């Protein structure tokens, strides 16, 4: 089922959570909504589910206007971050719930429901857990039950809110591959929300990067990684170094900066900001260099250098055994040669986002 979202806005108590969302999702696509907390991604998901209502805008699924349809009538499968399983029902009854609440005329018979549940338990590889209660299950097992409950109603659209947020890293990787398989086999249109880039890029056909209620960029991993559409996306994708530069004939210039490896950009002359990832910078030792090494640490494979020019301090990473790593000791002076980076016009006056998205991964614990 294709989903078309147009000019959607939503605010809570005067705070704009969605500031005009336009998004089209093709039938059978697996899409990730990626963004820091507060970017509006979960609100968008809940609006598609019918659990929230937008202030303005349109939502059409397979040509039908869904804003005039109650959540009960949309036939969506929604998997909550903390699963929201019914604690007083067995796994079997949880999965059967969506079928048993149907009006009598549309409700399958008892035997048909039992067969459907058995089939889902088998499909989700939890056949042995049918008679347990949610409290007796591990996080990964609960996740499977929650998905089974959502799939039982043969949803037109499958929506997942931080599906792996509450799981530990090993289970997360397992379930990721498994969810991709479930998606491919059911052929449903699937949207999931995450703040984890790795998860989004590994799993999704397309990633929608959201920030502060807007869609910042839509694309695959390579596109978003190499060509961030905005300073927000650049920061979110881990470009923690922001150097003020001057643009001349499409080339960035700054003292101590060797920009020869950066491509020309068709941008007007003037002040600009160069966004760099810590691993995309090569330090060049120079006694008269602009930056001084303030601190050096190693994790065995990578060296982390804290550089300062008096005004600005940032960290860069390089392999410890690389030839250019020789002589990089605290107090040494260096110039920098960016190997890759993104330039946005305008001086560096843009505020940092509230949540620090450059951190590797927020482990959520219950």
């Amino acid at each position, binding site marked *: 089922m294709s989903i078309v979202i147009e000019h959607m806005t939503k605010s809570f108590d005067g705070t704009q959570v969605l500031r005009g969302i336009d998004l089209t999702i093709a039938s059978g696509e697996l899409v990730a909504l990626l963004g820091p907390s507060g970017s509006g991604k979960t609100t968008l998901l809940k609006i598609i*589910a*019918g*659990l929230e209502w937008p202030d303005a805008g349109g939502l059409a699924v397979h040509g039908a206007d869904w804003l005039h349809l109650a*959540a*009960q*009538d*949309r*036939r*969506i*499968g*929604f998997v*909550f971050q*903390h699963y*929201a*399983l*019914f*604690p*007083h029902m067995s796994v079997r009854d949880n999965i059967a*719930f*969506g079928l048993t*609440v*149907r009006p009598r005329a549309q409700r399958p018979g008892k035997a048909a429901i039992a067969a459907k549940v058995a089939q889902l338990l088998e499909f989700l590889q939890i056949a042995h857990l049918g008679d347990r209660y949610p409290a007796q299950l591990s996080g990964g097992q609960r996740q499977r039950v929650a998905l089974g*409950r*959502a799939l*039982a*109603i043969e949803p037109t659209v499958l929506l997942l809110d931080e599906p792996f947020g509450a799981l530990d890293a090993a289970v997360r990787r397992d379930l990721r591959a498994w969810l991709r398989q479930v998606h491919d086999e059911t052929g449903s249109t699937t949207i999931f929300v995450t703040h984890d880039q790795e998860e989004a890029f590994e799993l999704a056909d397309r990633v929608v990067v959201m920030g502060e209620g807007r869609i910042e960029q839509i694309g695959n991993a390579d596109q978003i990684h190499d060509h961030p559409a905005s300073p927000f996306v650049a920061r979110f994708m881990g470009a923690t170094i922001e150097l003020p530069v001057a643009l001349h004939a499409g080339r960035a210039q700054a003292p101590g900066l060797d920009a020869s490896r950066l491509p020309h950009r068709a941008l007007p002359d003037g002040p600009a900001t160069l966004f760099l990832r810590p691993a995309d910078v090569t330090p060049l030792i120079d006694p008269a260099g602009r930056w001084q090494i303030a601190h050096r640490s190693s994790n065995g494979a990578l060296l982390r250098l804290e550089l300062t020019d008096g005004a600005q301090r940032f960290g860069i990473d390089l392999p410890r055994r690389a030839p250019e790593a020789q002589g990089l000791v605290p107090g040494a002076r260096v110039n920098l040669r960016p190997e890759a980076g993104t330039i946005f016009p305008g001086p560096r006056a843009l505020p940092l986002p509230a949540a620090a998205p450059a951190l590797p991964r927020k482990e959520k614990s219950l």
Partner: protein
Amino acid sequence: MTALALSHAPGQSRAVPRLLIGLAFVLTAILVVAPLVFIFWRALAEGWAVYLQNIADPLVLHAIWLTALVAVIVVPVNIAFGIAAAWAIARFRFPGRKLLMVLIEIPFSISPIIAGICYLLLYGRQGLLGPWLAAHDLKVMFALPGIVLVTMFVTAPFVAREVLPLMQAQGSEQEQAAVTLGARGWQVFSRVTLPNIRWALLYGAVLCTARAVGEFGGVSVVSGAIRGQTNTLPLQIELMFNDLNTTGAFAAASTLTVIALVVLVVKGALESRR
């Protein structure tokens, strides 16, 4: 846990913990156990035959019947009110929500006798609504409706107070999940909301019952204490006591005590389920 709390370093004096435990036992015995034992001792002072005769007294039987009737009306109404109020407060944000939370608590902080007087001033013959009620031949004061109203007021908070914190803690995700799975309002309530709060609800209902059966102050104002007509059990006990029928009073009191003990056991059983 107990063992941990009572453990002590070798050589350290055990006097203080022993003193505190002893004090707790003595105070409980004096304040709680002795009066309870005394009720049954006095009720049975003249033997089982007199005891049964006292309870079989038509006035006592009527009082028991009236008390039960009041409880049977009040408790279901308060369960409905409690669920509705807790649900509204836990699930919705609306103007006056905080006020409603305070209003639910009011019967806890107001003396029941004040509630009784308020009802008297409102519904009594000289009261605000008195002439209108009289004109329509409706008798509220010194009759069953008055007793029910006051008991309802006094016991209003019990169910809501038990259910609300639980509903707030559980949040609405399960209900939202049920909605996305196609459940209608009533199905969400009966299959998801209600099973989740059932123990708290039962616990609140038990407390509500105990209070409804034992209510004295408010009811004494509005019942008029007409023997064999508007006397609830607590009022009947007082009446018999004032009539110097001590054995009879204690016999009637023993029935109330048995109810209270049963409630206590049920409450204990429910607490262990939660």
